[in-house]
């Protein structure tokens, strides 16, 4: 039986939505085919790759994929590089618990605004320069960490380094100029998951570099400073690689991107309006804070927790802490895959339940992690917590593309920012302003994650239903997506892409319902033949 839904991963239609407004590529004519043969991968009419070959570095598609996820990875490494070294840094700088907590909050807060701004930067300069500017201007901040000698300086520098997390947006933007809409979901889930892995990699890299420098006879308070040059150099190297070997478009021409961008430019204020007036946006902004936010907070506190509670060596604490972040290699894409599998049978309702189950399970394992007093149980809880929380992140971005077709970019950006806001709040309440131990803080974080995932039940699509309610009989996809356009815009035919998208979304009704639903008459479409 032919599958109703589109291939796996295609439901994650372009997380950054910078792909052109036409949901399908126009067949531009024969001359294109000669150019297509010069690419290593099969391409569509816009020369975007239609498949992903992970172990290739071929220009431009695969090279872009690797450059973009590696630059995001580098920024995550440097943002959380202090975390495994906190036992040394806190003694050198005389930090109190409040200082450490404030620095953790600062490290994730900078990105809230830089991620929102990065979309505009990519529009102006292209994703290649957006990425290079961020990564190379953050490098001085990383190097300056080596010369800090007070709590205030520490907090400031962690804030400035954290701003570089905006490369998440440039990463997703850049891959969406290179990869076809059918596979962009998988590509983005892989790129963002592998980038987030940096939070785990840094817990391995920094202690090992630090211990290596110690063995050279350097005292601890100097060794950690020298160790900080490693992420700094990674920034410089990645920045130069991006500038010398990267290109904005498959054809390498930035000017045509700007021309294209002008042609498809929507009115920003309208796009923003439709993003903020859709209540689902705000539910996701809130709920994402308890999958991604919890993950970012844990990256900051977990190594210190294992060092202090179980009296482990700094390297062993780093290895355990690394297991948390490194699970992103598979868990985030897995969340998206589970979302797609569920949707194949039960549609959007399965996607929503998938997020809720994963995120709540993550909260439960987090609670166990805080309570566990034996090392094996603690590590088991942590690994399960990491899988569930990270899969929930991937699953969330399996639903975001359906919230709005017109405002997808802004909603993705706002959701991402919500993750950082949740991280800041969680770190502030449970690990900075609190009077209890880190273990108790982790327990409370787990309870809060479980409670704050409940608003997911409020997400209701009239045409697909919600977690607890079935769909309305008279609602359909076309009406939902066309409602974002005014009558005037509809008369100009500007909503055609949304209608095409709506037709492709029929599979979100689930297997049974999709068969029953015939192609609905779009209520407001311009007549084809007058």
């Amino acid at each position: 039986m032919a599958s109703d839904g589109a291939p796996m991963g295609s439901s994650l239609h372009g997380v950054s939505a910078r792909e052109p407004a036409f949901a399908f590529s126009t067949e531009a004519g024969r001359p294109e085919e000669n150019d297509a043969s010069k690419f290593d991968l099969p391409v569509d009419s816009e020369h975007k790759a239609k498949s992903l070959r992970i172990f290739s570095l071929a220009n431009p598609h695969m090279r872009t994929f690797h450059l973009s996820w590696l630059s995001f990875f580098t920024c995550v490494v440097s943002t959380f590089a202090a975390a495994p070294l906190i036992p040394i840094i806190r003694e050198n700088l005389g930090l109190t618990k409040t200082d450490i907590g404030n620095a953790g909050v600062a490290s994730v807060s900078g990105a809230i605004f830089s991620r929102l701004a990065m979309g505009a930067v990519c529009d102006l300069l292209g994703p290649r320069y957006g990425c290079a500017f961020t990564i190379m201007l953050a490098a001085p901040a990383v190097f300056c960490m080596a010369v800090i000698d007070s709590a205030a300086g520490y907090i400031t520098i962690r804030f400035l380094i954290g701003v570089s997390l905006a490369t998440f947006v440039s990463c997703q933007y850049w891959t969406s100029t290179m990869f076809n809409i059918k596979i962009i979901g998988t590509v983005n889930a892989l790129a963002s998951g592998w980038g987030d892995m940096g939070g785990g990699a840094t817990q391995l890299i920094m202690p090992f570099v630090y211990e290596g420098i110690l063995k050279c006879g350097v005292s601890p308070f100097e060794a950690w400073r020298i160790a900080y040059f490693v992420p700094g150099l990674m920034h410089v190297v990645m920045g130069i690689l991006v500038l010398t070997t990267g290109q904005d478009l498959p054809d390498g021409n930035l000017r045509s991107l700007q021309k294209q961008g002008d042609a498809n430019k929507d009115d920003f204020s309208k796009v923003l309006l439709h993003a903020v007036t859709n209540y689902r946006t705000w539910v996701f902004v809130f709920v994402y804070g308890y999958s991604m936010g919890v993950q970012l907070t844990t990256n900051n506190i977990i190594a210190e927790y294992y060092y202090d509670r179980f009296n482990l060596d700094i390297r062993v604490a780093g290895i355990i802490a690394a297991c948390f972040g490194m699970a992103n290699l598979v868990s985030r894409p897995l969340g998206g895959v589970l979302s797609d599998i569920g949707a194949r049978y039960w549609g959007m309702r399965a996607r929503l339940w998938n997020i809720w189950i994963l995120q709540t399970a993550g909260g439960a394992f987090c609670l166990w992690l805080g309570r566990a007093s034996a090392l094996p149980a603690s590590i088991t809880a942590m690994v399960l917590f990491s899988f569930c929380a990270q899969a929930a992140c991937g699953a969330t971005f399996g639903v975001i593309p359906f919230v709005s077709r017109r405002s997808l970019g802004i909603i993705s950006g706002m959701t991402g920012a919500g993750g950082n806001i949740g991280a800041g709040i969680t770190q502030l309440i449970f690990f900075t302003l609190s009077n209890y131990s880190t273990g108790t803080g982790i327990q409370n974080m787990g309870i809060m994650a479980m409670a704050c995932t409940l608003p997911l039940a409020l997400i209701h699509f009239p045409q697909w239903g919600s977690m607890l309610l079935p769909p309305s009989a008279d609602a359909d996809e076309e009406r939902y997506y066309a409602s974002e356009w005014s009558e005037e815009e509809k008369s100009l035919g500007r909503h055609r892409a949304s209608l095409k998208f709506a037709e492709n979304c029929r599979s979100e009704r689930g297997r049974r319902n999709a068969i029953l639903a015939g192609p609905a008459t779009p209520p407001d479409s311009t007549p084809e033949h007058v």
Partner: protein
Amino acid sequence: MARRQGAVVVSLLAAVLLGACLPAPAAAGVHLSTLPKALDVTASAKPGQVLHSGVDKVTVTWSLNTTEPAGADAAYKSVQVKLCYAPVSQKDRGWRKSDDDLSKDKACQFKLTQQAYAAGARGSFEYTVARDIPTGSYYVRAYALDASGTQVAYGQTGPAAAFDVAGITGIHASIKVAAGVFSAFSVAALAFFFVVENRKKNK
């Protein structure tokens, strides 16, 4: 790929679990409140004096407290001298918390010396403040250990009277120079590429 990653995680976990099964350190579970304060300990640093790590020295001396009966130190085989955080340096820093259970106590993290105890005599040790001692307020505590290494008595100079240590910053001129050079290079490289490519574009 998921399988390979799973195997890596499992082997990492196995390595850590094996490490966790290693025997606990000796002298676990002795409570400070059960120990007699039988040693009289003095430190040459006066309360409020600032010692610079790596440079200044402090001399610690210990002997049997005169209030103790003679011969009470028959079981004392060695003396372990430790540097402990004063309460002002423990405030808001849970990782330096004192605990009555000496195996869980985190207030005395720095071992100055462990040497043989001569019964009836005065022992002393001259300590150069190490370069990894952080800035803070400290006092000295000495434990008397029996033949098996378990604490059987102690003495301390604080916590009321504490001296200060000024730790090293760890910042050398070479680190400052390197940070400056690399930062400038990063910004300059970016500017260079931007200008060159803009010029090429406008040509």
